[in-house]
């Protein structure tokens, strides 16, 4: 009984610590800087309790669900010894979780609107939808390729910082020739691709692989998949921008 209680309250206390800062910031700006009353205190309290409960559940779910599955699947792929299926899995994981990502859909829609306003594409509804869909597919493709590259890095033991520096050089070079309008969106798309549910899964996969391949260190080789997934979309989106305006 005591154990269950601790299981239930431990995460809640941690969650409270995690969101305390947001409360302080919002209260400070609302009361002292903007000098306005809180619009609806009851709603605030209900909302914050939901956030608290939600975080506690999420963390517990990671511990008993997502992390063990990612780990177990990574071990199973290594045991199976087929690089083809592992890489296909890596691509599917990256592509499928990104293409339906709501944050990406929102950003792509806004980017299409803005591009139409600036006359980069035609203002019609169809042209905008094509552009937004193209952007989404580009980003999803890039994340799929990124996870594949990241897994290859773990298998072949390439040093991560050399991969990243090569990536940076390519990004900088492409920035020179990419149309001006696409650059902000391209750099942003690196950030929005990795959602709350993909990150733990991909991390667990990487660490699982690194700990089941002999001679790899989980800390040194297990992390780094997300790094690829945030760099490659920048490159791919700029190339898409060049291709659309060409």
């Amino acid at each position: 009984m005591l154990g269950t209680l601790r299981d239930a309250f431990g995460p809640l206390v941690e969650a409270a610590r995690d969101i305390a800062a947001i409360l302080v910031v919002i209260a400070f700006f609302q009361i002292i800087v903007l000098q306005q009353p809180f619009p609806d205190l009851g709603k605030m309290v209900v909302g914050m309790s939901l956030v608290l409960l939600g975080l506690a559940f999420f963390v517990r779910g990671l511990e008993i669900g997502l992390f063990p599955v990612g780990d177990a699947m990574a071990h199973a792929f290594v045991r199976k010894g087929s690089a083809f299926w592992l890489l296909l899995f890596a691509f599917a994981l990256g592509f499928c979780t990104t293409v339906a990502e709501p944050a990406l859909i929102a950003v792509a829609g806004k980017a299409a609107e803005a591009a139409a306003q600036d006359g980069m594409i035609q203002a019609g509804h169809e042209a905008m939808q094509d552009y937004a869909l193209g952007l989404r597919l580009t980003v999803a493709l890039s994340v799929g390729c990124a996870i594949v590259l990241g897994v290859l890095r773990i298998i072949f033991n390439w040093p991560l910082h050399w991969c990243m520096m090569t990536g940076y050089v390519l990004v900088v070079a492409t920035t020179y020739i990419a149309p001006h309008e696409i650059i902000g969106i391209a750099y942003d798309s690196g950030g929005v691709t990795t959602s709350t549910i993909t990150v733990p899964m991909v991390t667990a996969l990487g660490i699982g692989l690194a700990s089941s391949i002999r001679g790899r260190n989980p800390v040194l080789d297990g992390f780094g998949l997300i790094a690829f997934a945030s760099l490659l979309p920048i490159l791919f989106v700029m190339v898409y921008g060049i291709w659309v305006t060409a």
Partner: protein
Amino acid sequence: MQEMASLFAQTFLDTLFDVMPLIIVLALFQFLVLRGPLIETFRVMRGFIYVILGLVLFLMGLREAIFPLGEVMARQLTDPEFIYGTADYLVRATHWQDYGWVYIFAFAIGVSTTLAEPALIAIGMKAEQVSGGAINAWGLRMAVAIGVAVGVTIGCYRIVTGTDLWLYIIAAYVIVIIQTQLSPRMIIPLAYDSGGVTTSTVTVPLLAALGLGLASSIPGRSPLIDGFGLIAFASVFPIISVLAYAQISERLEKRSRLEKEG
């Protein structure tokens, strides 16, 4: 009450739509390719239900309490009437010093939302676990949060002054490359990863509101070119701050070891 129920239903559908592709990919590969029995099926399923339920409640709470207020704040703080005390701002040139509260807000929002970011909590947990406690989850997250805050503040300064985005990003990359040579090797992959995880559920909507509000209230800024881009700052600067955190803790450790010996 009814409003809450419909908000719950809507958020639940959104989250399910978000999680479904992952579950389908996992299930397909588990049952068709790997074909082994899933470890502790019941426990794992409970875990996935917890994750989905947790995200739904979390998002609901954010949409109820934080987002509307945060977005209104971002708009009010970037409103020329607040900044100059008059709506007649077109006659004045834009001075970056006038936007003091915007920078402070950007910094504060950067730190506080990053600390609440679930994806970063996940990375912190994993890092502490696999490093055997050598990497402290809370310290790592604090380092990332400060990186995001500094990045977003500089990003706001950039929007106000209207300088080119790529200049800043390239300068940041150069710093990252130099730091990479000087940092303990163990932290490097983690540092590069933390750049990508900082910006998701909590941070992006508020940053987007701030960036777009700022870009549309300053004459001569285009929301397309200038409004986007804050997220880019929030993804590069945490790499710098996490590497710096590792460098500083390594140096402190060395010094205390020397003192003990000497």
